[in-house]
């Protein structure tokens, strides 16, 4: 590409990997959200179970899903994301 952008820059490999992690997380998020909402929520209302006063489908899908994603995102960032420099003055001067 132009402007001295080297596609084989090792930082771009890291960036690409992290973008994939984002896609995987959003898929997990969606499956969890959809599964509990329409898995448990499609029963008739009289048969709903309750957690902390909320219908079980809602609790697991929305409240549980929120907590799950915060945990997963934190773990992903802490253990899978790498810190890279954004400015490359050092590279250019060397």
């Amino acid at each position, binding site marked *: 590409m132009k402007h001295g952008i080297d596609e084989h820059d090792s930082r771009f490999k890291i*960036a690409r990997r992290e973008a994939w992690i984002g896609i995987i997380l959003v898929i997990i998020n969606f499956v969890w959200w959809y599964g509990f909402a329409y898995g448990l929520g499609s029963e008739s209302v009289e048969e709903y179970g309750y957690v902390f006063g909320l219908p079980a489908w809602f609790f697991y899908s929305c409240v549980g899903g929120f907590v799950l994603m915060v945990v997963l995102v934190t773990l992903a960032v802490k253990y899978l*994301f790498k810190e890279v420099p954004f400015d490359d003055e050092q590279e250019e001067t060397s």
Partner: protein
Amino acid sequence: MNWSVIVPLLLFLVIIFIIGFWASTYLKTSDSFLQEYFLGGRQLGGFILAMTMTATYGSASSFIGGPGAAYTQGLGWVLLSMAQLATGYFVLMILGKKFAIVTRKYKAVTLVDFLKERYESKWVVLLSAASIIIFLFSAMAAQWVGGARLIESITGLSYTSALFLFAASVMIYVIIGGFRAVALTDAVQGSIMFIGTLILLIATIIAGGGIPNIISDLTAENPNLISPYGFDGGLTPLYVSSFWILVGVGVVGLPQITVRAMSYKNAKSMHRAIIIGTVVIGFIMLGMHLIGVFARSVLPGIEVADTVMPLLTMEVLPSWLAGLVLAAPMAAIMSTVDSLLLLVSSAVVKDVYLNYIKPDASNQRVKNLSFGVTTVLGVLVFLIALSPPDLIIWLNLFSFGGLEAAFIWPVVMGLYWRSGNKYGAIASMVVGVGSYMIIHLYFPNPFGIHTVVLPILFSLVAFVLGSMIGKQRQKASAYVA
């Protein structure tokens, strides 16, 4: 007038002004006016970055329209709104480090700068600047109407004076302080949104006699309210899921959000922002929409959905605390509007004027022009908002979908697909926006999915086909030459 509500609101405005003035001191010391005014010198830390993304994204619809819809629809609407949890981590992870590095190399100040350098095409620049100006202008008008209505309902001022008060407060700090003022005030506004949600949620649960009590009230009124299908069973799984495109992953294409993904200091700020952003946006969306549902048990029979949130606040909280909580939707609206105002101004000054009218303008001239354009835009929005169009949520989502259809693929594919070129980008924008408008006007929600889904698919196909055909044409003409 209810002074105990108004005083905390005024206090909030004063704090915002002080931040604006403080941020404007950076403009005097910075050696690059454009970088500083439109991007805060790329110095945002993790907390400010998370807050400015969340607060810019969370708008009148999150605090007024959303809870109102949840009041009508029940828990199914809270489910729908939780698609927005993804915005907290997805945008920064997808654009992520590559966008940060590439925009620094390009010295890009706006999203259009990035597209200009990436595709090297005048048409890409003009099309994208035009979509930003048209769509964000209408989004801004909708938000101003929301802000003025809110002040009107809280203070009892007339709509016009409320609008004037709102417009004046936003314009002053945006004009003098630029992006840094916008981001810093967003941090304060985002914190107020978070705290306000927390206070109101607790107060509403107490006023309703606890969650089990509220839920049984709702079940007694209409069992559908606690099902995922909406009050009349109209929220189908397919329709609700399609909001993951509109308000979840599609947000990657919103210029007011993407520009923030080039404003942070380093990888550490990005990492912190991803975690904080997910927590804050998830909590605000879950909390505010639940509040809307619970309000039905506390205050049954509200006719105008947009008034649910202010009325509930006045009902369940002592008035001094109500003022603080009502500062939250104010903050949500202001933090969206300030970013839009600055973005539209940057599209006019940087993307159109400096690119095509006067590329060699002096720093001083750019400075005056930036202040001037921001002011004129503010006044124009004010005039439009004087005779307000009706549904806040509708206008807001209209511009949302249009911008997403225009930008998502030129940005994402531009970053990650090397063969993407200007033919693809132009085709994608034209097809995206064009099909969005046609479907929106003539076949809304085709096959029971949200209008935005098909245009986003079409624009992807257009991008790929356009790039491939364009490449062959380039090759062919190279052989001829």
